[in-house]
């Protein structure tokens, strides 16, 4: 009897913990899965097609990298109750603040363009014209955000996150060799040696896993959700789960294209889906659906990251819990970014694939600036108190910043001296 009562007590405790997590869950998972956006899917698909399984080990390394970077925003948001843009303005003054804000706006808008590129490419496979995709997406997103509640928005976003897992069954359907994946993918190696192309792909993969908009988005989402200091452990767990999930999905995409399209020069995920349609209709369809979902999820989050940041600085009402009358500028900036980005895709002859890959690389190049501010803010003992960064956390953050700057520099050198790494 005693054993049963103990078991019942433990189960009840576990169920309560799960219930509590479900209340807190959201920002971490949404931001990390949304990170597998259209540009991300394109990058992973191109990586698999170009290098086969050889860079899977590198993707796996990005789980702790993404977690360490993003969990800092959870602590900062929950303790200060303000978004990263406002925290940078307050902490470092207006000059640095404007630099961070303009940097964010530019990269966010460019990334938003890549989301529309992905969505139009995905639906083009099913015969939907780009103008109809752009109009449909803008309308759908208007319906999602104008319901006037953060909670509803988050649950819809989580639904799209679940659809992002479509690449996992797709990978099983093509029956890859587990031995080849372990042998070729889990032992660190640099396929083809060090060259500009490898640096470009490594940077693009980092750029799809951690991007400036994610820092701003998660912190603002933590604030909008109303998370408190006591919720930080759950927020961290949420982020860890999201980090693992995003990289697992990325690895499965690499497996899909690495198995079926290895050695092919794939320029976009849309092109990969078209190729896959010829080998396996269902896998191709899954790839296209996943690409559309990724673009939509990315667009939902990125446009919000910009509007939140603007609202914080300009002092406008900036919450999804407020309706369009209460927060007109918040929604105006949201739709302005969305519609202008959508229009770029409709320009005839625009180099959409090239834009997608370069946006990832530019995003990662500008990331260290935002990261340095974040680390400095997390070292402000006066504000952060017990939630201040430890020496270990600072070392990890510093290492990530240094690694990104070195990779960006190597790529820069390869641009200036293309024959240096041949």
């Amino acid at each position: 009897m005693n054993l049963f009562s103990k078991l019942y007590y433990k189960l009840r405790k576990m169920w309560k913990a799960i219930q509590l997590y479900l209340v807190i869950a959201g920002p971490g998972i949404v931001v990390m899965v949304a990170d597998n956006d259209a540009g991300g899917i394109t990058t992973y698909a191109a990586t698999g097609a170009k290098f086969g399984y050889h860079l899977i080990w590198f993707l796996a390394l990005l789980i702790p990298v993404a977690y360490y970077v993003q969990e800092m925003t959870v602590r900062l948001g929950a303790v200060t109750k303000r978004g990263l843009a406002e925290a940078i303005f307050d902490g470092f003054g207006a000059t640095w603040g404007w630099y961070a804000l303009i940097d964010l706006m530019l990269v966010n808008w460019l990334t938003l363009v890549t989301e529309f590129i992905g969505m139009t490419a995905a639906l083009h496979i099913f015969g939907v014209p780009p103008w109809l995709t752009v109009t449909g997406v803008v309308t759908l997103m208007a319906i999602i955000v104008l319901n006037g509640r953060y909670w509803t928005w988050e649950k819809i976003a989580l639904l799209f996150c679940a659809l992002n897992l479509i690449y996992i069954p797709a990978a099983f359907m093509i029956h890859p060799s587990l031995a080849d994946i372990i042998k070729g993918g889990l032992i660190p190696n640099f396929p083809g040696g060090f060259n500009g192309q490898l640096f470009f792909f490594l940077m693009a993969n980092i750029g799809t896993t951690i991007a400036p908009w994610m820092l701003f988005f998660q912190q603002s989402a933590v604030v909008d959700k109303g998370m408190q200091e006591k919720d930080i452990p759950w927020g961290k767990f949420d982020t860890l789960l999201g980090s693992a999930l995003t990289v697992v999905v990325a690895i499965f995409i690499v497996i899909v294209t690495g198995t079926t399209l290895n050695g092919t020069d794939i320029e976009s995920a849309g092109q990969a889906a078209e190729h896959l349609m010829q080998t396996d209709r269902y896998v191709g369809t899954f790839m296209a659906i996943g690409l559309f979902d990724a673009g939509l999820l990315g667009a939902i989050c990125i446009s919000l990251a910009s509007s939140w940041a603007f609202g914080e600085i300009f002092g406008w009402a900036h919450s999804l819990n407020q309706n369009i009358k209460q927060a007109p500028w918040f929604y105006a900036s949201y739709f302005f970014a969305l519609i202008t980005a959508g229009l770029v895709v409709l320009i005839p002859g625009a180099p959409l694939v090239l834009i997608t890959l370069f946006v990832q690389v530019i995003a990662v190049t500008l990331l260290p600036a935002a990261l340095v501010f974040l680390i400095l803010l997390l070292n402000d003992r006066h504000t952060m108190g017990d939630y201040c960064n430890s020496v270990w956390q600072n070392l990890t953050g510093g290492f990530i910043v240094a690694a990104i700057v070195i990779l960006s520099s190597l790529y820069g050198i390869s641009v200036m001296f293309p024959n240096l790494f041949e």
Partner: protein
Amino acid sequence: MRTSLKRLFRKVAEINQRYREPRIEMSRAVRVALEFLRIYLLFLVCLMVYKFILLLN
């Protein structure tokens, strides 16, 4: 249009005034390092834009 622009500039000036003094004190070395990082990253971005134009042509 003119009134909106005026209002925007007034708002920007107000923000600059509000955040004129940084709350976190940075040593001169940190400030110089941050400035250098900013210029260096912008230089790298310019290089990437150059490469983008090269590929475009």
